């Protein structure tokens, strides 16, 4: 086996602008600031932007051997996406270097560059070219792509008329027929219905295991990683926490995410959220028909009345599935000095089998706490059903 990727001392920093509310610089502001500086010598310091350097990746080293299938896991904001972006040459490292052998194709999003006005056929060529396939390659794989996506009948229909399922199928089909030496894939299996996810996973397995390609695969779906990868890298706060065999990697990752504590030393608050399923705290996964209870512990230095708690459960595409708020239920949150505990239970058979993320926001007095601003994942198992919510129905003969 030979090294195909070598990463040494890789770091990436971003400048966070605290003053600007907008995510981009406006010339207007720059000019305004410059003129302000000229005319106000006395307090020129106050007009200066408070800029902060944020290191998304800090001095990372790793090697990847040819044929390795590496899963990259970590909480949101751990640096996974930044790493993929640097490897795919979308952005440049601030320090360090990466050496790569062979052609790299990256799939950070399904259907990049799809144009709604163009037909399915046209989009296959467009998307293929964007992903780095030559026209000849696309032609060779054209039938296989159409076949995989199951869209033969709609090839000449503009994709804006496609259902979202067809759209995703076509987009994935193009990407699945890339033939690079190194394939970089970001959480793209989180799209489509359960059946299609299965099909995609099968295709990914084909590409990686049977064709001997090197694959770097970011996912929150532990099941998929287990099936596809022979190696994992666990990222934590911009550094590599663990690299090696999959099971040990999962254990390491678990120890990271099971600790949902937030302590704010300066203000004397400590907050924590736990998920209680049948008496078991923070289980690795739960079943659709399990009762779910959130337990929120708050330690406060003082008494506070009229506080606010909300808990959100989002699906893997980022849609809010459940939003729990105390004011919806007219439940007052009064916090006493010392320890407080609140329990929120929701009905069973709500969450369809999938991966979810939850997080909690607590407003105490004039302070706001996000408990685990990195999202905590929640895997729900059950019979594979289609539809966004779990549902039970009663059938009878009338």
């Amino acid at each position: 086996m030979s090294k195909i990727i070598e990463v040494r001392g890789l770091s990436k920093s971003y400048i966070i602008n605290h003053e600007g509310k907008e995510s981009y610089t406006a010339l207007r502001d720059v000019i305004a600031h410059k003129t302000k500086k000229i005319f106000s010598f006395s307090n020129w310091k106050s007009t200066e932007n408070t800029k902060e350097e944020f290191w998304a990746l800090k001095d990372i080293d790793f090697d990847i051997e040819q044929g390795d299938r590496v899963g990259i896991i970590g909480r949101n904001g751990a640096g996974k996406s930044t790493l993929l972006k640097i490897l795919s040459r979308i952005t440049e490292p601030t320090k360090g270097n990466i050496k790569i052998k062979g052609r790299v194709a990256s799939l950070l999003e399904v259907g990049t560059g799809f144009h709604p006005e163009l037909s399915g056929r046209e989009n296959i060529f467009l998307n293929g070219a964007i992903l780095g396939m030559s026209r000849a390659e696309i032609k060779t794989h054209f039938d296989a792509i159409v076949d995989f996506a199951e869209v033969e009948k709609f090839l000449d229909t503009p994709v804006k008329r496609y259902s979202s399922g067809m759209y995703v199928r076509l987009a994935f089909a193009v990407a699945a027929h890339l033939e690079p030496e190194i394939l970089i894939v970001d959480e793209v299996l989180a799209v489509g219905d359960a059946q299609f996810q299965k099909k995609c996973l099968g295709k990914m397995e084909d590409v990686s295991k049977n064709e001997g390609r090197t694959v770097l695969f970011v996912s929150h779906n532990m099941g998929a990683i287990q099936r596809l990868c022979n190696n994992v890298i666990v990222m934590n706060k911009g550094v590599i926490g663990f690299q090696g065999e999959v099971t040990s990697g999962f254990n390491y990752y678990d120890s990271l995410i099971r600790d949902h504590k937030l302590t704010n030393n300066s203000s004397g608050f400590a907050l924590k959220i736990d998920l209680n399923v049948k008496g078991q705290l923070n289980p690795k996964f739960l079943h659709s028909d399990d009762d779910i209870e959130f337990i929120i512990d708050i330690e406060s230095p003082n008494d506070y009345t009229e506080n606010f708690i909300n808990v959100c459960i989002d699906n893997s595409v980022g849609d809010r599935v459940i939003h729990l708020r105390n004011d919806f239920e007219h439940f007052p949150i009064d916090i006493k000095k010392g320890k407080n505990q609140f329990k929120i239970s929701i009905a069973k058979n709500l969450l369809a089998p999938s991966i979810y993320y939850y997080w909690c926001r607590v407003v105490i007095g004039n302070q706001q706490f996000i408990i685990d601003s990195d999202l905590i994942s929640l895997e729900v198992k059950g019979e594979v059903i289609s539809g966004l919510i779990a549902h039970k129905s009663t059938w009878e003969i009338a």
Partner: protein
Amino acid sequence: MKTTKSNNEDWDLVLESGRADKHYWKDLWRYRELFYILSWRDIKVRYKQTVLGAAWSIIRPLLTTIIFTIVFSKIAKLDNPGNAPYALMVFAGMLPWQFFSNALSESSNSLIGNANLITKVYFPRLIIPASSVITSLVDFAISFLILIVMMFWYHYIPSWHIVFLPVFIILAFLCAFGVGLYLTAVNVKYRDFRYIIPFIIQFGLYITPVGFSSSVIGEKWKSLYALNPMVGIIDGFRWCILGNPMNWNSFIFSVLVILVFLIIGVTYFRKMEKSFADNI
């Protein structure tokens, strides 16, 4: 890092901060198919989306020509140095100007318009503004058909100079591309800059001899006027199509200005290119 230089040669690709990318121009060639297909996409979408798409590129220059002919020839009574009808002279100037202004506004917004590609895939970013300038070339071709119709209408036979027209089209292309590269890169950094661009274009129309001939400009100001590269290009178009007299000194000056714009544009774009994905 203790890796020696010879070691680097075993690798196909080395990613490093501020590394002068020697593969860039080779990559640009490798990604030429993407360039074709993005140009094709822009053209296709442009003419698919609006029924007016093609009609628009006929109506606009035609109406402007009529107005300019009335204002500058009938009201202001400006000179026409050639022997072609005034309307033809205006249109021969309108063609490159419209191409330039369309190409400039398209290319300066091109990076922002393709932000989804820039944050998700790698390719030499030069492809995006370049393919947007190509789209304007199609509008130009359509407008050119009107010129031919107008020539039939006026029974006007073009001079043999017309064989040199492609040279001036390429110059207009390079001019729009050079300036467009600079503007689109600035646009990524300062998002409100795009509000200034229509103003630049409108201002440009006043200091460019579209509705009149550059010969009405006093001798004293000629060299200053030639700083505007479109002056040389429009003069060239009129020389090719109508056989109007041509001031070669100011033309050479225009070509130099275009080259300077192009060098500045490409250099600035390349410098900013690395941070596009972070800023967009």
